[in-house]
């Protein structure tokens, strides 16, 4: 069987690169839109030029986002082909609707690029808005799928039966015996489930597994994740754009760049106020409720303890204890069922007939569910130092980002009292060029590091499962053993790193370098003589 462990960091690398481009894809339209608005209202061509440069960066960035999206998509179906079962069921509706988003996102982006500067600013803003709407819709749908992997909405009490500390995940709209039979077949044979679902005629034989294909959309975990992730991505894109223009101001001292930084920093601060105290709070509450192991990892709660501040934030009640792994273990021990009892309760035969293959599950009959539960908690606990550190680094940098946003906002937009304090703080950073640049840089650090840490918490924090409480990475990994070989991994890392680092360098060139080598082209076109 393929060892999934070397493939997890590879997938993570692809996802991180994709996330980075997506952040610019989400944030740059806001920044470009602001520039176009200012150009329209003031007629100042500096704003138009800024919009044009950011559009060129968006063009390269979008290409990189698209190919890393392709990589992630193929990574899912190729390296983790067991996910195909989720794509055919819970993820079917979101991914099918994603086609609407992706196709129209690109069509409107191309239309925007082609017509920018050729049509009136409001028309450009309208086209850009349509592009952004489809881009965000794409984010909504992909987040819905990812959220289903975090909190598998629609399986009702299935996960809770195996892990008593977990909540019920929404209504039960699955055929439980079929789902459990698939899981037991995978456990009994030690083979990934893709070896079952690849068989011609298997789906016909199994029949309906999920009764409500739209159920992934009803998840409260998905709803809050959508706002949290999309806002975070917009903030990163905005921060990068702000820092880019602040850097130009720092290098040149040209006031036209400061003029561009000001509205971007203002919009950033407004969005940050919505994200950090409001949306992030609800995200935390969802994690507390739906991912108890993740919350314990985040808080480093090996043992249950009292902390009124964390409890107030997490539960809204300072007297409640922070549930640690000791309590989760107690919950495991309360389960007295065996796999055999579970199979009997679901009327599963001892020998499952699956696509012409007989799978004997009697060897699992005596396995206690409490032992499985405890073993999985041990696996989860191993991630505690990483998740706990990542979470608190994320929180610390988010606070830094928030403070920098506030200082920059009140530095630019005068509010009695607050602006005086902001100016006093800003002066610590040196002259105006330095202070604007350094504060903008803190916006980048205050958004990028929380995002990197946040995704680590979100994704690694749900281990040892790929689908929380239901499936392990080993059950969905490819059966192709050389996928985890050093040769293939080296090839994959090389391609991913070369393309992405090359792409990032190209974006830097596009953003910063002027046209130096156009003589031949101008001569050919008969212009600029």
């Amino acid at each position, binding site marked *: 069987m393929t060892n999934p462990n070397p493939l997890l960091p590879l997938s993570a690398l692809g996802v991180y690169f994709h996330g980075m481009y997506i952040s610019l894809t989400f944030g740059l339209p806001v920044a470009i839109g602001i520039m176009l608005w200012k150009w329209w209202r003031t007629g100042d061509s500096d704003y138009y030029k800024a919009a044009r440069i950011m559009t060129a960066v968006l063009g390269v960035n979008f290409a990189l986002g698209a190919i890393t999206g*392709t990589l992630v998509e193929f990574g899912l179906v*190729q390296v983790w082909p067991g996910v195909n079962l989720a794509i055919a069921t819970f993820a079917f509706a979101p991914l099918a609707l994603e086609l*609407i988003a992706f196709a129209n996102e690109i069509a409107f982006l191309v*239309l925007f690029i082609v*017509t920018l500067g050729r049509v009136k600013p409001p028309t450009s803003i309208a086209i850009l808005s349509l592009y952004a709407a489809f881009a965000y819709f794409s984010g909504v749908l992909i987040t819905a799928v990812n959220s289903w992997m975090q909190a598998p909405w629609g399986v009702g009490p299935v996960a809770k039966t195996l892990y008593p500390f977990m909540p019920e995940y929404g209504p039960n709209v699955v055929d439980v015996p079929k789902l459990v039979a698939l899981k037991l077949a995978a456990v009994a044979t030690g083979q990934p489930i893709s070896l079952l679902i*690849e068989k011609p005629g298997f789906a016909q034989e199994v029949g309906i597994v999920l009764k409500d294909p739209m159920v992934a959309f009803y998840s409260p975990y998905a709803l809050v994740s959508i706002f949290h992730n999309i806002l975070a991505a917009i903030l990163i894109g905005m921060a990068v754009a702000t820092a880019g223009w602040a850097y130009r101001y720092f290098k040149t001292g040209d006031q036209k760049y400061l003029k561009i930084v000001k509205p971007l920093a203002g919009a950033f601060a407004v969005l940050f106020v919505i994200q950090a105290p409001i949306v992030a709070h609800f995200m935390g509450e969802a994690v507390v409720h739906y991912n108890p192991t993740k919350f314990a990892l985040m808080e480093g709660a090996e043992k249950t303890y009292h902390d009124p501040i964390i409890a107030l934030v997490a539960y809204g009640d300072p007297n409640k204890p922070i549930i640690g792994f000791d309590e989760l273990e107690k919950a495991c021990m309360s389960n007295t069922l065996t796999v055999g009892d579970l199979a009997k309760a679901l009327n599963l035969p001892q020998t499952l007939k699956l696509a012409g293959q007989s799978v004997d599950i009697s060897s699992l009959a005596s396995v206690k569910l409490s032992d499985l539960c405890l073993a999985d908690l041990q696996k989860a606990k191993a991630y505690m130092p990483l998740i706990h550190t990542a979470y608190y680094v994320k929180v610390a940098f988010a606070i830094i980002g928030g403070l920098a946003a506030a200082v920059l906002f009140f530095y630019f937009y005068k509010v009695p009292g607050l602006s005086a304090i902001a100016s006093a703080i800003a002066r610590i950073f040196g002259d105006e060029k330095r202070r604007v640049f350094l504060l903008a840089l803190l916006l980048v650090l205050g958004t990028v590091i929380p995002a990197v840490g946040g995704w680590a918490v979100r994704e690694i924090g749900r281990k040892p499962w790929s689908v929380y409480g239901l499936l392990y990475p080993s059950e969905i990994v490819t059966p192709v*053993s050389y996928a985890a070989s050093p040769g293939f991994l080296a090839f994959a890392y090389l391609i991913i790193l070369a393309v992405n680092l090359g792409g990032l360098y190209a974006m830097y*060139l596009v953003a910063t370098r002027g046209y130096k080598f156009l003589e031949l082209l101008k001569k050919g076109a008969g212009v600029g003589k």
Partner: protein
Amino acid sequence: MNPAVFIGFVGLGLAVTLHVIFVSMTIGSGLLAALYRWKAYRENDPWAELFARKVFKVLIVSELFSGVWGTIITVFLAGFFTAVTTLATNTLFIPIAIAIASIMIRIPTIAISWYTWGKIHPRTHSLVMWVMALSGFGVPFGFRAIFAEINHPVAVGYYLQTGHNPGFMPYSNPLFWTLYLHTVAAVISTGGFVAASLLALDKDPRGVKSGLLLGVGFLVAQLIFGPLYYFSLDWYSPLLFKAVNGEFLSLFVIKLAAVAALLALGFVSYKAARGGVISSYVKWLGPLALFTVALGEILNDGGRYPNLVILGDKGLSADLFANFYIDIPMPAVYVILAFLVLSVVVFTMAAFYALYKRFIAEVPEV
């Protein structure tokens, strides 16, 4: 066939056809653009530089949209035909990895080529353009292995019999090589004709001649590769061969007539272009080449109906590979198809403004 499976089959066919139309345009024109960009640098030829830039517009406008349809194919496959997708990824791991690696190089290098034009040294830019052009051929080198395997399962057959991964075995499938050569010649030829049509709008006889040279030259090569693929179907995929010569014969005849027309008009137009005259046919040659490509793909894939996989003179029905795990919400599928049509309309508008109205400047704006 179950209605959901039928919609899946038709949707997949539509996505494959549109994808192939776009990639046929872009792979060939990418090669042409890289060639003339390099010539411009080597020979300090301003016309070649401008020509490369004009041809490159085809890629910058359509490559991403072409990629969308690739994604649509994947989602249709995984969503509607879960078993075949899983079987393909478990069996054809290497060809798919080659295709993905090529896509990863191809799309960013297109964007980088466009946006760094004039910003980096022409030598470096030419190199990036060559990487962009050649990576385009890696994509069908991977994906055509899947098409060859579903028409004549060599590697998949080995896998199903032994349980062992076949590694590079898909490349020992004789149908792969005939299909790949046929594809490569088709995309280069189509790219040439599309470029010629575009340059005809620009009234540039030298550009028309350059496009037609590639278009007609590789269409002549198709006189070898086309029949080779046709007869290899007879040898290795007789059921598909029978369908092409049976239920799909009328389409096949139309395709042959289109190829003949393309060859004749292309040759006449090329002769005229050599004399500095742009024939009135030229602007129609690009669309005619794309029409021929679409017909070829419909014959290849539609000819398999109602099967998804062909085993000699037998077929494995699409039902065997279809998704029966859910009742597919058909209203949602119709809404999706409607929005995909919207995206085609928007894209066509963008392409019209970019290529016909020439909204994209040849010389980049500062």
